[in-house]
Every structure is written in C-alpha cells, then in structure tokens.
C-alpha cells in the first residue's frame, strides 16, 4: 500500500487499475472458500445422488463394484410398488407431518407471544429448558411412551404419531417463533391496543400477518422434521398409521438382495418433501432472514 501510494504521488506512470496486494489476498481467500463450499456441498449431496442412482439399478448391479455406467431400469420401482402400496404410506406421512405441524403452531403461537411480549424473569430459563429436552436421547423415553400408547390405544394410530411429533417439534417451533416475534416492533401491537384490539385480534390482525414469513418457515421446518422422522414411527406404528419412513425400512431384510429396492423406496419417500422444499425455498430463505431485512 505504502509503495503504491509513493509511486503515484511521485508522479510516475501508474497503470490505470492497480491491483493492490490486499485485493489479491481477498481473491485468494474467496477462491479457497469457494472450493471448500463446493466440496462440502458435494459430500452432503453424494449419498442422496448415489441412492437415486441405485434405485434405477438391478439388485445385482447394486451390490456390484460401484459404477456410474449401467442401463437404468424401473424394475425395483415396479417391485416396490407391487409389494406395498406407496399411496397409503404417503397419505399417512402427509396427514401426520401437516397435522403435527398445525397442532404445534396452534400451541406455540400463544406460547411464543407471551414469551416475546410479556416476558418474566424466568422466560429465558424456560426457553433454555424447553430446548434442553431436545438433548435427551428419545430412546430414553421409548418404553414409558410405548406403554402409555398401548394402554390408551394410540399404538399404530395417526393421532398417536401426531401427538408425538407435535411434542417432539414443539421446543424448536416455540423457539423459532419467539425469535421472529421478538423482531416485531412492539409499537405496532401497542398501536393496535390503543385502537381497541383484544389480544386475539392483535394476534390475528397484526402479529400473524406481519410475521407470516417467519411462521411459514417455522412450519416448513416442522413438516420436514416430521416427514423424515423414523425412530418413533418405526416403534409406534406397524401397518395402519405407518408413514413413508416405515415404508423404506420395510424393504430392508436380514437376507437376500434389497439395496436397489430400498433405494427406490427411499427416493419415492423423499421426492415429495424435496419438491415441497424446492417450491417453498424462497419463503424459507425469506423467513430465515426475516429479522435482518425488515
């Protein structure tokens, strides 16, 4: 920098655009970050890519030396569809994922409202405690929940799964909504109160419309988490309420060849949520950056 400045000050011929060492360092940094970013992205994406490929292979090809060159076939898809009805499982997934999300939002919106706008000394502690429940391994409560479900007739019912998923996602949903609500200018709600809005009207007419992007992205996350959940669905359902995660698992067997079928089933299971996520990604990103770009 100093040399560059002396040069130009002394009046010597200076190129119109002079690249300082700083810009070079910046470019270098950007290059490496780009390479790193792509590497991570490929590493994350690769298993999914391989799964989709395997779904189009025959069972023998699937366990053969890994190769990108093969003749794609729909054989596994046909067999999967024949052995178990995809539609039934998919419907269970849709009902359970959206049902639990709706229920979680219904509970979480009032909870987050009170935490964001009427905080007490213990609000922060309550939030942390709620999140800390997510740190327990779910298997720790498997037996009590299983017994409870057995005795109340909730085993293998959609209602049962909806209840479990709602409780599972509730801490994250409350936490996210809390941060979105906190970003909402309090003045606007107070103006509403001055205008005669009851708490319910305040929430319905002002809070919800204004934090809709945040609520939408929270809901989307909850749907995705519920859709992909396998531990509880495998343990609490068998045939009636089994969602797509159980459907995938049903193709793994202790003997015989099943990789291609398993992959085909998995591809079919994740396809809807992938399309759903793709369609709503704009909403998601907007929601996740809601506070920053008000």
């Amino acid at each position: 920098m100093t040399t560059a400045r002396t040069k130009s000050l002394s009046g010597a011929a200076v190129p119109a655009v002079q690249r300082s060492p700083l810009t070079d360092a910046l470019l270098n940094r950007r290059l490496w970050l780009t390479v790193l970013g792509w590497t991570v992205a490929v590493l994350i994406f690769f298993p999914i890519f391989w799964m989709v490929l395997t779904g189009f292979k025959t069972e023998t090809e699937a366990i053969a030396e890994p190769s990108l060159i093969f003749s794609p076939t729909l054989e596994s898809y046909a067999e999967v569809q024949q052995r178990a009805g995809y539609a039934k499982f998919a419907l269970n997934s849709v009902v359970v994922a959206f049902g639990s999300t709706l229920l979680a939002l219904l509970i979480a919106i009032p909870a987050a409202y009170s935490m964001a706008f009427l905080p007490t000394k213990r609000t922060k502690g309550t939030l942390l405690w709620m999140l800390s429940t997510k740190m327990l391994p779910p298997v720790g409560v498997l037996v009590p929940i299983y017994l409870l479900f057995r005795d109340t007739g909730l085993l293998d019912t959609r209602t049962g799964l909806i209840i479990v998923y709602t409780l599972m996602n509730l801490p994250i949903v409350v936490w996210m909504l809390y941060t979105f609500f906190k970003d909402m200018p309090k003045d606007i709600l107070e103006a509403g109160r001055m205008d005669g809005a009851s708490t319910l009207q305040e929430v319905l007419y002002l809070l919800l419309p204004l934090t809709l992007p945040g609520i939408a992205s929270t809901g989307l996350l909850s749907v995705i988490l519920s859709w992909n959940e396998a531990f509880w669905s495998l343990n609490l359902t068998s045939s009636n309420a089994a969602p797509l995660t159980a459907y995938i698992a049903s193709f793994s067997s202790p003997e015989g060849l099943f990789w291609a079928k398993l992959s085909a089933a998995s591809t079919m299971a994740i396809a809807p949520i992938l399309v759903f996520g793709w369609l709503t990604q704009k909403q998601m990103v907007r929601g996740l950056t809601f506070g920053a770009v008000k």
Partner: protein
Amino acid sequence: MATLQLKHITKSFGETDVIKGVDLEVKDREFVVFVGPSGCGKSTLMRMIAGLESATSGDILIDGQRMNEVGPADRGLAMVFQSYALYPHMTVEDNMGFSMRLAGVPKEKRREKVLEAARILELEPLLDRKPKALSGGQRQRVAIGRAIVRKPSIFLFDEPLSNLDAALRVQMRIELARLHEELDATMIYVTHDQIEAMTMADKIVVLQGGEIEQVGSPMELYHHPRNRFVAGFIGSPKMNFLPVEVVEADAKGVSVTLPGGGVSKVAVDSQGQRAGDALELGIRPEHLVLDDDQGPLTGEIQVLERLGGQTSLYVQMDDLMVTIMADGDVTHRVHDKVRFGFAPGRAHLFDAEGLALPSLEQHPLAGLRRQDSRASDAVGQ
C-alpha cells in the same frame, strides 16, 4: 372535551423508581408538553396515561373518573407513536379505519370518516398506498390521521417529530398547532426538544429523574425558572452560569461580585441572603450585551459563529466559557478582548441547592398562554 388529573403517580420497574410521585392537572383543550432529557420518565408517564403501562401507585383521572384499571382503548385517548407504528400490511385507508373495523363499524361509514380525516390532513390521494410507499412526513400524517379518526378526547403524542428532518419538523409543528385549534381537543405531547415545547405548548411540564421540576407557560419557564435545571434546559443556546458572591442584600435585590471584580445588583428576593454567601448567577446568552466602555465582565473571544442575523460569541473568562448572542453585524474577530454586561432585571440568582431566588418583578409576558394570542379564542372566552 376532557381534563386529566394525575395524583401522586409513581412507577417502579423492579427496584428502579422511574416516576417518583407526579401530580399534574391538564385542563380541557390545553396543549401540554412534557419535556426533559432522555430517561427523565416523560415517555413512561405518557404511556401510563395511555394505559400501555400500569402505574405502581397513584390515580389517573380523566374527566374526574379513575382510569387506572381501564384498558387503553376505553380511555377515550389516541396516541401517535414516535415510530409512527403504522400497520405495514394495510393501506393508508385501512390503517386509519382499523379502530372502526375492530369496533364493527360498517364499511361505508368507515370510509366516510376516514375521508373526513384525510381531508383535514390532505391525505386523500394516498389512501390506497401502503406505508412503505410513503415519505416520512406522509407517514407521520397517517399516524395523526389514525388518531383523529377515533375522535379522542385527549391526543397523546410521543416525540412525533423526532424522525423527521429539520425543515419538515418546522412544517409539522405549525400543522400540529393548527390541528389543535381545529380539533379543539386536549393534547399531551412528549419531546426532548425544548424548541418544540416552547413553540407549541400552553403549558410545559419539565421533568427530570422522574420528578416534575416545574410546570408553567413557556414564557413563565423562560423568564422565571424555578431552579438551575429548568433555567439551563429551557432556552437555546443554554443559559450561562457564573459563580458569584453576595456583597449586600436589601429590599431592592442582591448585589453580587462578578468574576473579574465588578459588582452588579440583581432584582430578586434577598430574604436569607448574607454578605459572603456563594451563589450562582444565571444569564442567558441573548441577555448579555457587548459594552466596550462600561461592561463589568471581560474575556477573550475563542469562537465566533456568524448566523447572519445574529452572531454567537464564545468568550473565555479565566476558566469559564460564556456564550453571548450578539448582533449579526458585530465587527469583532477571534481573540479580541471584549467587555460585556447585562441589565439587572435579566439575570437570575441560584442558591447552593440550585433553587432560584424569586424575582421581585413578574415578567409581563410570564402569564401569557399561547391561546391568548389567538383572536378566535379571545372572542370565545
């Protein structure tokens, strides 16, 4: 038509006392301004009147009725927020009509009332716009419109002009004064800007540290500040304070020695003052007069700000810096030595506690209310 009474209002947030016992009476159709430095509790006081904050103790009476337990919407008030607090997802029309929508007023009637308010504020062409498509001044007008539509008995303004640029602020100030006349409503206005307070108020309430320092008309506060804080807060540039010593105290006033040795007599109540007591002399920059022959005070000009019509001189007197508002055409230069003085009736004396010694003579304008200068009101009264 509404009066407001505050009876020993206090407010504590946990251990901290924000408002420490405020008594106040606001008359019908009065324009009252709460003014004070930030953190003095003026906004909290207003929020308690609005019902957005509860009072820890004391009574809030509107038209003689205790309102402490009444919700914000049912107190018959409307508030204009500093941030405007418009509903960003609604059009101007819906913003202004929101209170009526909540009250279940039919759409036709709503539109009629919104149009009426829009006409007063010249907002008609903007009714279909969303707040983000409006300028700061227009947003401000919508916020006021939203308040007008509700036909409140008392308007509350919480620093409504602080987000506007200087030129717009002057314009809105005039507009608010005009509105006050047109709407004939009681208005309470919070600001930290003493110029807004001076220009708009019938009555100014100066607050500091959660307590009222003084209540009075603008001219009363200017000419007869009750203490050193009010004296320094009202008036711009700030009042100068000089340490002085009592030489003689009699029925005509108190004579004090000035820095530099001169003696001057100030026409204040001399009761309790004895020779040798240390006091503080307060004199406004506009009341210091350059007098090269006889001025009892001397100093060296450090900075000279020419504003055209006026010139501010910042004069160093030993370890004191004094501001003088002089004529625009003074020929002095920086580092000139100047002599200056003041008329005895213009100076104030403050005791060790900062309390002003009462003037012997009431300033003729001290009792003037802003409304008195309005012909229409004079006829009405």
